[in-house]
């Protein structure tokens, strides 16, 4: 039933999940479904594939996706429209400032300045964009699995 509801809506807001396809990204879309027995809404998740040739969506991003007029393949039914919130790089829409959990980055920087900054500390201006540790130390771009076979080759996604 909810699948039909999602199919009727042309624009959806979804969260990107790991996906190995080259030209598409997978999205988790959460919608509320009415339980008619309890007369209560419960969250229900469904997964949608969207065409994304440049792979601009990374795992965890909140993305606006639009329905294609015609299905591209059996799975790909949507196209990526805009990355609204990249994961871990949030901009406050009211002030346009960067935010880290509950604080502005500027405020944190100001406090550091009062104490005197250290040489080896992390600098936002010099940091490369997200993704430079992919497949090296950060393995969140793909799904991991429980190791089931002892092979000579190393499987980095086995836990």
């Amino acid at each position, binding site marked *: 039933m909810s699948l039909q509801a999602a199919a009727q809506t042309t624009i959806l807001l979804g969260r990107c999940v790991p996906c190995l396809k080259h030209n598409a990204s997978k999205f988790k879309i959460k919608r509320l479904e009415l339980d008619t027995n309890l007369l209560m809404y419960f969250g229900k998740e469904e997964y949608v594939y969207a065409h994304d040739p440049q792979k601009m969506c990374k795992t*965890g991003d909140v993305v606006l996706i639009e329905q294609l007029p015609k299905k591209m393949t059996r799975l790909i039914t949507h196209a990526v429209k805009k990355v609204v919130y*990249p*994961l*871990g*790089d949030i901009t406050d829409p009211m002030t346009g400032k960067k935010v*880290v*959990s509950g604080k502005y980055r500027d405020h944190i920087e100001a406090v*550091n300045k009062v*104490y*005197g*900054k*250290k040489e*080896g*500390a*992390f600098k*936002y201006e010099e*940091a*490369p*964009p*997200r993704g*430079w*540790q992919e497949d090296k*130390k*950060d*393995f*969140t771009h793909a*799904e*991991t*699995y*429980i*190791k*089931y*076979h*002892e*092979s000579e080759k190393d499987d980095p*996604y086995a*836990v």
Partner: protein
Amino acid sequence: MNVARRVLSSFNHPPLTNLTSKTCSRTYAFKSDLKIKWVRPEKIPCIRPEKSGDLEPMSQIDLSQPRMMFRNSKELETADETVKKLFSLEYAPRKEVARVYFEEIKDVVRRHPMDAGSIEVKIARWTGIIRAYQELMERFPRDKRMKVILKELIDRRKKHLKYLRRWDYKKFEWLLETLNLVYKPPPNEFHWITRKESLQKLTDKYCEDLKQERLDTYRKMLQAEQPIFLKEKIRALQFIRSEQQECGVEVTVTDEEIEKVKNQLQELEEKKQSESDDS
């Protein structure tokens, strides 16, 4: 399509043919003929560096430096060599050496000299303790109390790395690099490792690989046929064109068409040439 089927089925692969002949008489307790050997992965305890994600052990500390509490002592500076040696880390308990290591690892990521509670310093502190305890656990494997503390610390660090990733991805990646840690997300669902399921997965993988290999060889075969086909096409097009001109019928084959095919052939040959040069 028929050609493809004929070519693909013409490969003789003994294990698979056996399998296909067996599928007809597939019954209860069916056993695959494929020579797939499954090795059960050995259980690695959760406190080991392979599982916790630490890529380096506790670093070696310079033992000739004085103890932490005598660092700023004026008297020690003027004391003679024997006294200095007695007050150095060499004669201090292990706890003191580890404390120096904790300070060193925290200094690498500190935001400012007074920083003691930011997320990166917290994670660095836990990392230091984890690495020191991992070394101790190798020496005293039956110390259960330490094992529990170590496991809880590893889990807490992982939880906070998860939070940091959500709040500040750039800092998360920088921290992984500076502390030399690996972060792997937990698998979606837990299941016990069984022989049957593992063999099923291995068989699926084997079939996938086999399919890919056959498709690749078929593609290579078709590519090898391409130049011959194009030459034949050029000859045929030229023949049709000359015939049409001679008979005085409407000429349907243009020079551009023939030229296009010739260019295609030339491109193919150039590509082949460059590939052979590379190899």
